[in-house]
């Protein structure tokens, strides 16, 4: 959003102001970056309290499509620069304009590597997305991307609830690829109902039911613990990095908001680094 656009919005507001006295508080706030920043500060306060979020340039990056092909399935990649990886304890993901903005928190255990985290999320409207790295001593470093996507939280899944729940909890684990040693993708079958999806024919809402915790460990050591929310897409795909360990298998434990839980083990892809 450049100056130009902001100015045009302000101009439109000035034209409208005389007619729409009722809307003047909105106009006073302005449709600008400053208003989005205000919302972010409000969310930051709710999530992190008094702790400031410093500019994370050089430490954390967030890759997001400028325009999402599917608002219910927006791929995000968060990376931590190599020299900072050892001091990162967690990564928080905040989708500012989603009704439930705090989309995920990923905590890294001793067997984890914060180098990369890939998630697929629902985005409800054109919004800033914040990725915030938390250091082991509690400092916060953030970065932001603007994503054009709309209606992701309420988008119907496209099949009946029964079909969407078939095979719920089934998992697969794939190595990320030959060029990405030490990375893998965990796929979990789960509709991750947002609670905002309406069946258009019955006009009833499918109750929220989502993965609230996914813990990946190897040999008793945590790799990654992901606290999720309704903003994660159905059939979550979690891309993560890990450190070579002595164990030869990952154990994955997933629980959902209805109290169901699933556990599976997978051989660890060969790690030659």
């Amino acid at each position, binding site marked *: 959003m450049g100056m130009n656009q902001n100015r045009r919005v302000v101009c439109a507001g000035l034209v409208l102001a005389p007619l729409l006295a009722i809307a003047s508080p909105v106009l006073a706030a302005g*449709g600008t970056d400053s208003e989005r920043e205000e919302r972010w500060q409000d969310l930051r306060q709710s999530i992190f309290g008094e702790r400031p979020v410093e500019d994370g340039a050089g430490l954390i990056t967030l890759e997001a499509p400028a325009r999402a092909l599917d608002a219910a399935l927006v791929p995000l990649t968060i990376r931590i620069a190599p020299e900072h990886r050892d001091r990162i304890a967690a990564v928080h993901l905040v989708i500012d304009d989603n009704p439930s903005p705090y989309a995920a928190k990923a905590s890294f255990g001793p067997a984890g590597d914060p180098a990369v985290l890939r998630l697929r999320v629902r985005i409800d409207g054109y919004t800033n997305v914040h990725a915030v790295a938390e250091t082991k001593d509690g400092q916060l470093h953030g970065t932001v991307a603007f994503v054009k996507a709309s209606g992701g939280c309420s988008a119907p899944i496209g099949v009946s609830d029964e079909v969407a729940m078939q095979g719920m909890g089934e998992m697969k684990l794939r190595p990320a690829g030959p060029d990405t040693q030490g990375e893998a993708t965990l796929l979990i079958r789960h509709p991750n109902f947002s609670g905002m999806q309406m069946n258009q024919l019955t006009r009833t809402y499918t109750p929220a039911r989502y993965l609230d915790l996914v813990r990946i460990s190897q040999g008793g050591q945590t790799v990654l613990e992901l606290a999720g929310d309704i903003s994660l897409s159905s059939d979550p795909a979690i891309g993560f990095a890990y450190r070579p360990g002595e164990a030869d298998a990952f154990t994955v434990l997933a629980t959902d908001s209805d109290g169901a839980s699933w556990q599976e083990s997978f051989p660890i892809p060969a790690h030659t680094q």
Partner: protein
Amino acid sequence: MTAATLLRCWAVVLLAGLPVIAATLPAMAAVAEPPGLWTGPMVGETPATLQGATVIDVPALELLLEGQVLLIDVGKAARRPDNLPEDTLWKPVHRSIPGAVWFPGGGGGDLSPEQAQALLGRIDELAKGDKDTVLVTFCKPSCWGSWNLGKRLVEAGYRKVHWLPAGIDGWQEFHDAVPVQPQPGWPPADD
């Protein structure tokens, strides 16, 4: 030539002609206007027209905004899922075109008489009773709500009703949108 062959020939002619017909009469290929308010699923393909109103795109809206316009947003409000844990951070925000008035869900085709009265009454108030007020209705793309409201306004006697099917997403292609609050007194409480 047998009757069957004749039929087949006709079918070929008809099929060959279809693209031409579709190209010359685009409205025929689209969803037809319902005779009254639409009460089916609220998200889906909408008609290309709204009798009695003008269908506009964003550049046309920009021109309108050089004068006085009453922008009316009937996008739905985010609904908190009943079973969402209490400690979940829930902070819905509704963004709209700057200056717009928002009647969440006001585009329903099956509003109660009280709701319809409250809606039209408030719009009449905002328009200061002037049926020549320039009105623009919108919600999201593929949303029947703004079509319905346009229909209601035409039926209520407004002479300058405009419908923006591109909705808030279309607007945001060019401009930012601002958070808005629902209009006071809307929706009216159920008795």
